[in-house]
């Protein structure tokens, strides 16, 4: 857990620097927001470890974050306002940078695959995206929301 805390703190720092360069939010202004996000993540992990029934950490972390910013939670508007200062794209950039840095580890396995699996992968990703968007669009049109 201590190691995880160190890693999320470092990523948090990188994110607020990216947020500064890319979106013009000063690190001092962004600091409370990132601290809230880091705290939610750490508490979510602790819940995952402590609770007797096993659910993925994503579930607890997202539910916790959702709860503290939802209208029922005291101080939600402050928490929502502070975390809103962190642009979600600024937080995603370091994550995809780590994803890029791990790219090479799968390349050897990738080279063993035939062209067929590459075609099918692209089709599968297209299918899940396209059909979900299509179903959503149809529902919205039926309900007359747009």
């Amino acid at each position, binding site marked *: 857990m201590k190691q995880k805390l160190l890693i999320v703190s470092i990523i948090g720092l990188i994110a607020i620097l990216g947020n500064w360069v890319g979106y013009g939010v000063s690190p001092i202004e962004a600091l409370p927001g990132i601290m809230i996000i880091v705290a939610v993540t750490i508490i979510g992990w602790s819940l995952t470890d402590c609770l007797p029934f096993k659910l993925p950490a994503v579930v607890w*972390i997202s539910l916790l*974050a959702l709860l*503290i910013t939802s209208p029922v939670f005291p101080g939600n508007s402050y928490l929502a306002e502070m975390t809103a200062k962190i642009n979600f794209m600024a937080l995603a950039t370091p*994550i*995809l*940078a*780590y994803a890029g840095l791990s790219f090479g580890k799968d390349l050897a396995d990738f080279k063993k695959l*035939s062209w067929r699996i590459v*075609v099918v992968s692209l089709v599968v990703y297209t299918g899940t995206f396209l059909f979900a968007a299509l*179903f959503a669009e149809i529902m919205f049109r039926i309900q007359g929301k747009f």
Partner: protein
Amino acid sequence: MSEERVREWKLHVIVLGLVIVTELIGTKKIDLGIGVLALFPMLYALVIGGFISWPTFNWLKMGEMKRASYILGIAFMLFVAKLGTMLGPSLPQIFDAGFSLSVQEIGHFVGTIILGLPIALLIGMKREAIGATFSIDREPNLAVISEKYGGDSPEVRGALGVYICGTIFGAIYLALLAGFLGSLGLFHPISLAMGAGVGSGSMMAAASGALAVTFPEHAEEIAVFAGAANLITIIIGTYVCIFFSLPVTVRLYRWLEPILGRRHAVDKGEGVSR
């Protein structure tokens, strides 16, 4: 242990450099005539990062790349927390779209099968096609299929193949696809945002990022609905795979394989058709 830590600092420093450089470059849109290509910092970071870890250059060692992958898993949780804080204040809006949100989820699960399975069979895959198309094959789906068929089965080989392709170019591909579909004007940005919630953090981040670039006036809503759809896909995904996707794919395979499968195709020994 101390050696591990030194390596890890190297990764963090590279990432910091990538973030600053890519954020300075900023967002670019390229008009291709038929659609717009949306390019933005997280995509550059992904591509340059991939370049740095290219094995031939030997800039990163295998252990460092594995470490980067481990950090990626941890970093993704921060992103989940951030999305959660965006969902909280928008709960009324999400409940309002509840019905569409549940229906689109079906699209995530059937979309892979409807489009993927026939094409996999047409190009000559056999039982690999089941593993490759029953889901987008992220970690939970892999667990489901290897539990059922065992690690060395053709089904699991197909699933692993899609998993590897996904880690290598899933994020890039979905970003390009999202930007392209967005620029066509056929779908509302919110419908596309829900489509972006495929159930993988990095892919969703890249796809919703491309949508936010394409529709800047909807950026906030896009993140909210992509996040909500992604969360639903992750939370119920494992169960849907066990009770719906996998059985349906297997049935469809039995029905479609004799029709579409290339039975007499010469086995080229590529380990796919066997």
